[in-house]
């Protein structure tokens, strides 16, 4: 692996060189939150971010996406439609892990989803290690290191006055070569990088026990635990919309005057309509069944189906839940119940 360094100021010029060749998305400061947005200048990028409010999963799996177009009842054009070459600058290790979990669902031996795959293949991921994890972060419990470069094309560590760039793939190599302001990293830089990563890991104090959780849940479907758990939940589904691993969607036709598009839109297991049959029968009738589905899917069903847990410990569902449902407490209660 090759490592380069660049000064803090030059990162901005590096981003400027990418703009124009790629659509560049990076953390941008909004009124009271951070989000990945398209930037037209390196100065717009907010490098002091901890993490974005919403997950960057929408770059592979948009909240609403046109699948095909039809007119007068006939198909006229099918997707996937071209989104162009995109660079995601500053994506966190937990969110990259989220991509690899979505990948299991959308690209497997049974059915390959071209809408997801074409976007995945045309995107370049510039990951960035965490310096200051949030109090709600618990990625290390899920086996994710806040300094891990897994899945990135390039990976950046902020070592104070400089940034260390690790080149991990040929795509990463390609964009490094777009800019000539890089120097080779020296031993002191790499030592500093190690230290920053170690410190970040140390700062994550919350631990939840994931090993044995699946087995515990195996026998809990009928447990009275679920009857109370959902009581304060208002079913807003924010937790699933912001989750980097939630992949549920709906397919809907939108027509105006004989012309229309078939769209795929995010959907959520927290909504009663999600499983409602036309006959009126609903297998998940109340909040109890829906909350159980959400937890079971992440920590039990997904594990048996895809061999991994559908959670990356990013804490978005904890920060943004209007009634303070804390997934870490839920896990602890399951473990100790």
């Amino acid at each position, binding site marked *: 692996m090759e490592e380069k360094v660049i000064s803090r100021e030059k990162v901005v010029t590096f981003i400027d060189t990418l703009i124009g060749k790629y659509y560049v998305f990076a953390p941008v400061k909004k009124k009271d939150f951070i989000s990945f947005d398209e930037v037209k200048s390196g100065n717009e990028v907010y490098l002091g971010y901890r993490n974005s409010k919403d997950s960057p999963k929408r770059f592979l799996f948009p909240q609403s996406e046109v*699948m*095909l177009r*039809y007119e007068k*009842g*006939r*198909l006229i054009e*099918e*997707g*996937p439609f071209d989104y162009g070459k995109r660079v995601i600058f500053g994506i966190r290790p937990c969110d990259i892990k989220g991509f690899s979990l979505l990948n299991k*669902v*959308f690209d497997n031996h*049974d*059915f*390959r*989803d*071209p*809408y997801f*795959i*074409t976007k995945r293949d045309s995107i370049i991921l510039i990951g960035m290690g965490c310096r200051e994890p949030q109090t709600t972060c618990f990625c290390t419990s899920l086996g994710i290191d806040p300094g891990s470069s897994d899945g990135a094309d390039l990976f950046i560590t902020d070592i104070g006055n400089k940034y260390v760039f690790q080149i991990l793939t040929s795509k990463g190599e390609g964009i490094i070569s777009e800019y000539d302001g890089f120097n080779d990293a020296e031993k002191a830089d790499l030592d500093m990088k190690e230290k920053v990563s170690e410190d970040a890991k140390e700062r994550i104090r919350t631990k939840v026990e994931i090993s044995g959780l699946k087995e515990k849940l195996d026998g809990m*479907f009928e447990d009275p635990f679920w009857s109370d758990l959902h009581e304060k939940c208002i079913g807003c589904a924010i937790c699933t919309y912001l989750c980097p691993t939630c*992949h*549920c*969607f*709906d*397919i*809907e*036709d939108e*027509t105006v005057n*004989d012309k*229309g598009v*078939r769209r795929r839109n995010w*959907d959520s*297991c927290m909504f009663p309509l*999600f*499983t*409602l*049959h*036309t*006959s009126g029968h609903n*297998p*998940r009738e109340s909040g109890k*069944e829906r909350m159980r*589905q959400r937890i*079971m*899917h992440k920590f*039990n*069903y997904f594990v*048996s*189906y895809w061999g991994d847990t559908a959670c990356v410990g990013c804490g978005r569902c904890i920060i943004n839940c209007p009634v303070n449902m804390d997934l870490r407490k839920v896990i602890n209660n399951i473990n100790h119940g």
Partner: protein
Amino acid sequence: MQNPYKPYPVRIRRIIIENDTRDLKTFELVFLNKEDEECFRYTPGQFAELSVYGAGESPIGIASSPTEKGFIKFTVKKMGVVTTALHNMEEGQVIGIRGPYGNWYPFHLMEGKDIVVIGGGFAFTTLRSAIVYMLHGENRKRFGKITCIYGARNAGELIYKPELKEWEERSDIDMYVTVDKLNGDPWPAREGFVPAVTKEIAPSSENSICLVCGPQIMIKFTIPVLTELGFPPDRIINSLEMRMKCGIGKCGRCNIGNRYVCKDGPIFSLAQLNEMPDEY
């Protein structure tokens, strides 16, 4: 890369109104492109997503058998947006279809055994497919005795009536068509609920396997009868329904525990269902 969400275009060749209430129609469809037809190879028990642009898509069990060449057919009950749009269509119009999806009846286990087919109401569609398949030419030899018990509310609600009458005349299938109430109709000959008729006919469970599809209430009362007759749970085969969208295990809505009904089902044995959470 193939797009699994892209429907194949098909023309509606024939529409048959199946019942007196006129809310059940059978659609015979022909592929516009020969290559699509080749790609669409199915086995009885599977389903497809029927697509009406502007209305949406619905998962519907395939009612034809792969032994019937040149067309595929579906029997659709008018329920909501998509199924109503389908009911409003005419012969000659073009719709879309994608699939086939899901698993199929376990013919590898059924081979060499006696087969009992029990159906209720309009959930007889994929059972019809299985029967036509088993009765077809050389296939018939692969299975033992075939017994079919099929019931509906009244004579007017039985689907595939001409075919049922034809099967009654055949010697290679024992047909028991029944209705809840006869109301003086000349046909069928039998009155009684499916579970009661099953009990009365008492098909032997020895070296035998049973396929059962119908309304929840019928299933609920038929299973104890089958159990009493000695059918073990792994030889009672069911087909399930869940609300679906993608049909290919991605949209996340049709799971029962860790199985997706669209991909790992819709066909499950009672033994499998007993292992799964009761959430369907």
